């Protein structure tokens, strides 16, 4: 309320419409909204950059691994090579499956009876873990994309409320009384949209990419399981 009065007083002087002035003139709630939206935008873009880079690297690794896998190289050698380094994506699935295979053959008598099912379980677990890892951060994008406009709108409503209070305080409906309050209020909506639009767009893009990668990994897992179970059935 006090702010409304000061706003009204500030309006007697020529109004300043630079961004900084608008921000400084704003009510504390509107300021909080603006700062929050700015931070949300910051975080969103960080996620966008990170995810874009991460997905690109992931896809490159996957294609590398697939090349290695189908190159006719022995699976043992491939496993040895891959299990030493930090694996992700297809390699992780492969390593998990091979580890289970190895363990089943460690004993005096290989436990082959339900080996295919165990391998399937292990690979499914790995796949879901990888998928979770891929999708981490997307929630922030989705939330920002849907909630930021409302948060901005909240700031706008609050700003317009204070501008109405300025009208009531000064007793005139002069444009100079109304305009700054509305301008600062609209700035909040603008910030909300500024945060929400990239978040929504990139959420859609990243979600589509991740779904494609996950699908690829599932396909690989199925193929690999088919190979392994054939092997198991031959040994039985």
């Amino acid at each position, binding site marked *: 309320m006090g702010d409304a009065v000061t706003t009204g007083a500030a309006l007697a002087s*020529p*109004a*300043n*419409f*630079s*961004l*900084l*002035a608008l921000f400084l003139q704003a009510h504390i709630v509107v300021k909080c909204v603006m700062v929050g939206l*700015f931070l949300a*935008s*910051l*975080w*969103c*873009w*960080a*996620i*966008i*950059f*990170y995810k874009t*880079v991460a997905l690109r690297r992931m896809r490159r690794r996957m294609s590398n691994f697939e090349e290695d896998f189908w190159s006719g190289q022995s699976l043992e050698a491939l496993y040895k090579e891959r299990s030493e380094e930090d694996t992700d994506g297809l390699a992780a699935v492969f390593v998990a499956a091979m580890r289970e295979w190895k363990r089943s053959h460690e004993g005096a008598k290989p436990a082959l009876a339900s080996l295919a099912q165990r391998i399937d379980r292990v690979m499914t677990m790995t796949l879901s873990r990888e998928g979770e890892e891929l999708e981490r951060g997307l929630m922030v994008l989705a939330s920002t994309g849907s909630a930021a406009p409302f948060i901005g709108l909240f700031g706008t409503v609050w700003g317009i409320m204070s501008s109405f209070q300025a009208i009531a305080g000064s007793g*005139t409906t*002069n*444009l*100079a009384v109304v*305009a700054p309050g509305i301008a600062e209020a609209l700035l909040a909506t603008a910030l909300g949209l500024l945060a929400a639009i990239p978040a929504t767009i990139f959420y859609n893009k990243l979600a589509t990419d991740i779904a494609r990668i996950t699908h690829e990994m599932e396909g690989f897992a199925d193929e690999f399981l088919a190979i392994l179970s054939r092997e198991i059935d031959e040994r039985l």
Partner: protein
Amino acid sequence: MRNALIVSAILHFSLLAAAIISLPTSHFETPTVNALPVELVTIADETDLTEGRPEETEVVEEAATETVEAETPPEPEAQPGATDTPADEVATDADAIATAAESSAPEPAGEPEPVEATEPEPEPDPTPQTEVAAVERQPVEPEPQPSETPAPVPETVVPTRKPPPPPRRTQTARLEQQSSESFDADRLSQLINRTAPSGGGSGSAQASLGSESGRAQASLTLSEMDALRAQMQRCWNPPIGIEGGQDLVVTVQIRLAPDGSVVEIKQIGAQGLGALYDVAADAARRAVVQCQPYRLPPAKYEVWKDVQVNFDPRDLF
């Protein structure tokens, strides 16, 4: 993740800085405007207008030309005579009226000087009347005057008697004669009073561009006309059902008594005549007769004594 966050922060802050720097910082001042005065005008004032008649457009122009004639002729022709005579004849009298009446005194003042310069050389042969006549024509061509005809020049100076004044400058000339004898403020005011109307144009005194009937009709304001029509239409049962009934516009001219009752129905006219004329006219007549007396402002009886009312079925819908 940290790298991405750093990149994002850098981009955001640079963008913010660019926005703060580059976006125009507009200062605008709005002058404090107080409440606008709103004047409520009744319909009556607006509709109390005189109906014009296109064939009477001449009236205003006549008035204009009259005033022009009254004003302009004295100016050019009074100049030479007026300056000539006071300069020589009444010279000592500081003639305030003469100078006041003729605002263009400086012009002729320049002319007499060369005239006097040539004075001594030619011999003065007094033939006053003719010379004066010549002087009067001379102003049309002032420049050749000193060189060509030296003879008339002294004539203007010599005659002590006032030359027969040109008929057009009667006012100023008479005034000068009077003022030479005695200066009278009343006469001055008379002069002013007399000249003022000539310059004022026709004004309101002249009934221009309007007809009496038009004036009379308009004096009954729109709201009062509507009141009358509404009273009549209350009893009006127009023939709507018949074909083309909506186009039957009946105009009724009636004479009313001061108490609002109908004295006589003078005339009934209808547009879109035909077989339906009688029906429509009768409907209108019934309406007029049934609903009397009408309540109208008694002070304006002269105005609504003879009144014309249109019965238009289209008004009903």
